[in-house]
């Protein structure tokens, strides 16, 4: 009786021990079947047994959809079931790439695709510049011994935790015709600005909202890079009589460059993939001013009256190829850095 009463008390005192004990019990339970399996297939094949659950998961939810997408891109018609779709070869790709001039989307058979490419490029360039400048600036400030540094670090990171759709809805509420910003402008004696009617403003706010939402993540990467620079290197620079701008230019920037490079490539990859924030914020408008490639793929496959899965699939494959190259670049840079 006494022992029984002691047992829960001891367990409460040693929760970690209890977990470890449970894990050991589980290991003991799985030991006989695993030993039997190893005798059957040999030790050399056992790693594949452990990889199998992940492989099945990835196969079902990543590799199979990619394969189906490639099949869709080479077939035509409106049927959803691949076996019912007629094979058309590279016809969908030819249609996407059929352009009088690639600089003039109007001359292309799929002009909306090329407008999407142009818009995505514009978005990407502005996004990269703004993201790097703002996240670098913020990281530099947050790396200094300012008051309430922990609070500000959290504040800048919070938007990253929000869903992109929520972010877009918040800013839509601020920016719409009778939104918060226009109310403030009117109160200050100014005129209302129809942000989502002017193509320039629509692109500006698309970039701004995206930077606002994701800046915290890149700030964190750069902050980690800044904190990895030894303090005594800065002290040596101080002893060497280095002026602040020269410290930034000759010490901070070169030592932060590996982190900056990773940030640049990550921003590039995510910019090319942009969809949800811009789609919820502007709907691609005004007109086609903020239609991005992914929005083109989405509308072509699901939102148009005629659902053209084949064309959307071909556009996805092209986008996937671009992202694959960019990801390889990122992996190369990351590995070079860690080596």
């Amino acid at each position, binding site marked *: 009786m006494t022992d029984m009463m002691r047992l829960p008390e001891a367990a409460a005192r040693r929760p970690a021990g209890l977990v470890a004990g449970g894990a050991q019990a589980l290991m003991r339970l799985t030991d006989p079947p695993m030993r039997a399996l190893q005798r059957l297939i040999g030790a050399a094949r056992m790693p594949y047994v452990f990889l199998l659950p992940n492989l099945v998961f990835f196969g079902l939810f990543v590799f199979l959809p990619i394969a189906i997408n490639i099949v869709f891109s080479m077939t035509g018609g409106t049927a959803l079931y691949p076996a019912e779709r007629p094979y058309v070869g590279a016809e969908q790709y030819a249609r996407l790439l059929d352009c009088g001039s690639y600089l003039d989307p109007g001359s292309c058979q799929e002009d909306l695709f090329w407008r999407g490419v142009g818009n995505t490029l514009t978005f990407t360039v502005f996004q990269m510049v703004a993201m790097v400048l703002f996240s670098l600036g913020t990281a530099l400030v947050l790396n200094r011994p300012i008051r309430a540094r922990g609070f500000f670090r959290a504040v800048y990171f919070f938007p990253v935790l929000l869903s992109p759709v929520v972010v877009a809805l918040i800013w839509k509420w601020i920016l719409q015709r009778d939104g918060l910003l226009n109310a403030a402008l009117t109160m200050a004696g100014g005129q209302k600005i129809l942000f989502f009617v002017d193509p320039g403003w629509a692109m500006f706010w698309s970039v701004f909202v995206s930077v606002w939402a994701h800046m915290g993540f890149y700030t964190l990467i750069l902050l980690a890079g800044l904190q990895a620079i030894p303090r*005594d*290197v800065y002290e*040596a620079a101080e*002893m*060497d009589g*280095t002026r602040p701008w020269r410290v930034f230019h*000759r010490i901070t920037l*070169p030592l932060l460059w590996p982190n900056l490079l990773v940030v640049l490539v990550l921003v590039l990859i995510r910019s090319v993939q942009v969809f949800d924030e811009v789609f919820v914020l502007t709907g691609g408008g005004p007109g086609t001013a903020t239609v991005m490639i992914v929005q083109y793929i989405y509308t072509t496959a699901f939102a148009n009256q005629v659902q053209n899965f084949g064309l959307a699939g071909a556009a996805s494959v092209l986008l996937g190829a671009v992202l694959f190259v960019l990801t390889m670049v990122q992996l190369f840079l990351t590995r070079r850095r860690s080596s």
Partner: protein
Amino acid sequence: MAGLELRGVRKDFGSVAVLKGIDLSIADGEFIVFVGPSGCGKSTLLRVIAGLETATAGDIHIDGAEVTRTAASDRGLAMVFQSYALYPHMSVHQNMSFALENMGVPKAEIARRVERAARMLRLTDYLHRKPGALSGGQRQRVAIGRAIVRDPKIFLFDEPLSNLDAELRVATRKELAALHAEIGGTMIYVTHDQVEAMTLADRIVVLNAGRIEQIGTPLDLYNRPANLFVAGFIGSPRMNLLPADAARMPRDNFLGDAVTVGIRPEHVQPCAEADADLTVQVDLVEQLGGETFLYTTALGCPGDLKVTIRIDGQSALARGDRLPVRLRREHLHLFDSAGLACRPDPIPARSHA
């Protein structure tokens, strides 16, 4: 080159006082070593002199000019850091020339100074390499070279040898001594290694808990420690500190008011039983070839009284052996109840001869 004067320098970090009023004069061309246990404030004192920390109170004068609030870059000092603090993305040449570029020194002059320093430090073949491709000793020399090219008023060294292995440390120590002899600059050197302090310094400043315990030449500190702290800190193995009544010595004619008796291991001598001040039992024998250290416990004394003995040459003694020993009177250090050395000093003027 320049002299340095500190007057009542204090440094507080929040409510923690790290330096509690430092007064110190360093002459032009002197090699001064700050030594003390971890946390005694020696590195903080060096950083306050460098201008990397601002003194909470007191004045700092370099060559007669007050620099207490002057920025580190404007004090004209050069510092060699414990970690070397080389710019990892710059070559050896760029590391050495960076400060000169900041000062706007003409390119030809920069090249001349860098080449001269590289030759002096045997770095000529490595000028194009980055610090990552150098050994610890080479990095150390680059850090020194970076200081030399600036021709600073004072060189500051913050435990520069602590990251080197034992052999390289000895070699670099000799190089530093040679360097001081060659360029003759004022050098302030921080270390917790008393061998470095004893071998390099013109004068040693012993720090403890933010205060200066004693300033003097290495042999001054060894032969005439001002208090129990310095007596115990300087010397390896450390001085034996025994209660004055532990030894069989007549109190009236020698010990006076002394409460503690100090004696260096080399001044405790095995002797005949009749002449012995103490009888000790050997706990451990360390044979170093040229000398032997005996770690012993005094018998017949209250408490567990440990006595270290140094014997020239080799010894046949073993653990458990009993040994009568004599404490050489002329080398006894006497300390009063406050831990201060009793005067007149037991060491005759011979120590300065």
